[in-house]
């Protein structure tokens, strides 16, 4: 029996990891959560859980003592990402946890401009995304610990994690339904997808296999898809087609994006956290009223939807090469599921279940 501590179990990947592990009697997975609200996604299981404080190495070590492996899927504040990883790693060392599995991200490579990107390549420049920068810093710190006497450390760097409940499904599908989905460059960029079940199975394999694996691993679906193919498949599943998606030549960085980009600045995020929800709502209302005053009357009107391109999607849709997966496939030959076609078919079932269809869907 492998005792597995899952930090960040209340998230998209964590909840699916828990779900899969519970069906495997050789694994005893325990959700470790910073906030009780993280249990919302796990409430149906009625699991025992443990609160954790990632600010304290000592408290963390006490919580993690007795576990065979620790999985770090925590997200949250970009500024806390590196210190949390450092504290967790040190706590694992102190508690003599054998394996530390960390979820990195292929986002650190930006547009993937190199065909044979080595799995252990560290991102050398801080990109425009604060999240990518934070992830890259954590990667670099962990890279310096791989050959030390600490826990065997395995870092997965998946592409876009898709599947039921993924933001990389609900975002484009919502846009296709609303009529404001868009593709740059005819959708010819490579969409480096990684199905959530593939990622979860890789983590469970790293936690339970007889011999520990260490190092960095790119992780993704072996089937290479362009953005056009991916969007086309999604559109088909919801009763639409590729013609419903706007084609954009390139990204124009306007003053609107500069203004919208402010919200990602750390000091703006901190300020936002301090403002009461009610005040935020009132500010939105004033803004909406002001815009409405400058616009023609809305009642009785029907609006043609227009795309609202953003820099993140432009960057992702500009990816030039698939992530090389040879190292992962060589070390984890047992992780083969799911096949893209099957996964897309099942995703279609989930989309219809969730009401994400061009027409409202089932009424009964």
């Amino acid at each position, binding site marked *: 029996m492998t005792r597995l501590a899952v930090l960040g179990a209340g998230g998209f990947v964590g*909840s699916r990891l828990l779900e899969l592990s*519970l*069906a495997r*009697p050789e694994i*005893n*997975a*325990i959700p470790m959560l910073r*906030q*009780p*609200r993280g*249990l*919302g*996604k*796990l*409430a*149906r*299981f*009625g*699991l*025992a*859980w443990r609160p954790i404080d990632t600010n304290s190495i000592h408290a963390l070590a006490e919580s993690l003592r007795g576990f065979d492996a620790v999985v770090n899927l925590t997200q949250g504040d970009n500024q806390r990402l590196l210190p949390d990883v450092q504290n967790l790693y040190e706590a694992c060392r102190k508690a003599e946890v054998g394996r530390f599995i960390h979820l990195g991200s292929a986002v650190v490579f930006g547009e993937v401009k190199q065909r044979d990107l080595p799995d252990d390549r560290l991102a050398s420049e801080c990109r425009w995304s604060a999240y990518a920068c934070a992830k890259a810093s954590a990667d670099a710190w962990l890279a310096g610990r791989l050959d030390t006497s600490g826990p065997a450390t395995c870092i997965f760097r998946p592409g876009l994690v898709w599947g*039921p*409940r993924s933001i990389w499904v*609900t975002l484009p599908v*919502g846009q296709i*339904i609303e009529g404001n989905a868009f593709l740059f460059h005819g959708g010819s960029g490579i969409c480096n997808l990684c199905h959530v079940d593939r990622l979860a199975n890789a983590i469970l394999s790293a936690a339970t296999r007889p011999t520990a694996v260490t190092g960095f691993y790119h992780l993704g679906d072996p089937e290479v898809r362009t953005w056009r193919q991916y969007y086309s498949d999604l559109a088909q599943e919801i009763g639409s087609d590729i013609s419903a998606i706007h084609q954009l030549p390139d990204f124009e960085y306007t003053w609107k994006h500069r203004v919208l980009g402010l919200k990602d600045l750390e000091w703006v995020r901190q300020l936002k956290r301090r403002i*009461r*929800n*009610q005040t935020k*709502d*009132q500010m*939105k*209302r004033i803004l*909406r009223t002001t815009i409405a005053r400058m616009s023609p009357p*809305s*009642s*009785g*009107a*029907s*609006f043609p939807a227009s795309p609202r391109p953003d820099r993140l999607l432009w960057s992702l849709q500009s990816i030039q090469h698939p992530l090389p997966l040879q190292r992962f496939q060589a070390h984890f030959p047992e992780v083969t599921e799911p096949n893209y076609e099957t996964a897309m078919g*099942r*995703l279609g*079932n*989930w989309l219809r*279940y*969730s*009401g*994400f*269809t061009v027409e*409202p*869907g*089932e*009424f*009964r």
Partner: protein
Amino acid sequence: MLGTVIVGCGAIVADLHTQPLRRLQHLSAVDVRVLVDRDPARALTLRRWFPDARVATSLTAGLEPGDIQLAFIATPPGLHRSLALEALQAGCHVFCEKPLATRAAEAQELARAAGAAGRVLAVAHPRRFFPNTATVRSRIMAGDLGGPLQFVLREGSPYEWPIATDAAFRRETAGGGVLLDKGVHCLDTLDSLFGAGHVLACWDDSLRGGVETNSKVELAYSSARGLVHLSWDQALNNGLWIRGPLGEIRMDSHQIDRYHWRSPGTPWQQNDCHESWPSDLTSTGGVRRTPHNYYDCGDLEWINLVRSIHSLESPAVDGVVAARVLQQIEDAYRIAQPLDQPWLAPSEQAFWRERHWHATQGAPQDPLPR
């Protein structure tokens, strides 16, 4: 001026109720005199907004000097019944966060107790003040959609409420999961649109020892039939669709002052709503106000409560209506079947179906760690 006690000083009070209470205090309509919480630190935090209030760790202690006429109960749902009953028996009017209780019989008991004591018992349902719901109700009543009607109401998003404990996820303290939490709002909205209804079928994903994170309920009303679909763990294509032979209505959950309409074969059209409610405590209701967000609705709900206590109108949701909706939820729980999850592999679907909380006959040994 109504001497008021707030029982339970958690996130819902700080976020939604503090400002309306302060405004009513400024109008000399209420006076928050006691803050009750098992954790005095939470009550002391809330005292920032009500500096003259005293702090107590139990309602009994809070009611002691006898200067309280209104009890606002905002504790976990499992405590609502006993606290509301204690307040009513002490002669207080009661305003209770939803759900009024975790069982229909408890809600009925409270409604009877309020009637016997001649006190107002109201339940917090700010959605009763959504302008689009009120407008759509008028259109349904006017027969604009024809009949019979079909509907689907979806409400799903990852659980984000900043709760302090895990009480919301245990059946013994919360009474249920997403159906009781979000569903009570949705079923109340349908009650306001279509009148009393009954449950035809229910599917959920709760396992033994847990509460449901996903739920689907099929309901029938005298003029409509449809589906409520809820989730705590995923986004759904949220909103309310109502379809009749003469037209179709769509209400997005985040736009409370507009709705979309289309006649058969025509594109969707957006319609603004201007329904309004009394905004002060005069007998005429003063200048009526159209709410534009959830907080505006919270304001109007408190005004409705105080006006009800002064016999100027009726509470938007009283104990009888709340008990009716809770009866539907209880009926749904009683007949709940395993939710189909067709996005999972067939073997995985079967695994979870066998461990559904109602699956007792021949169910396998529970492998889940407790």
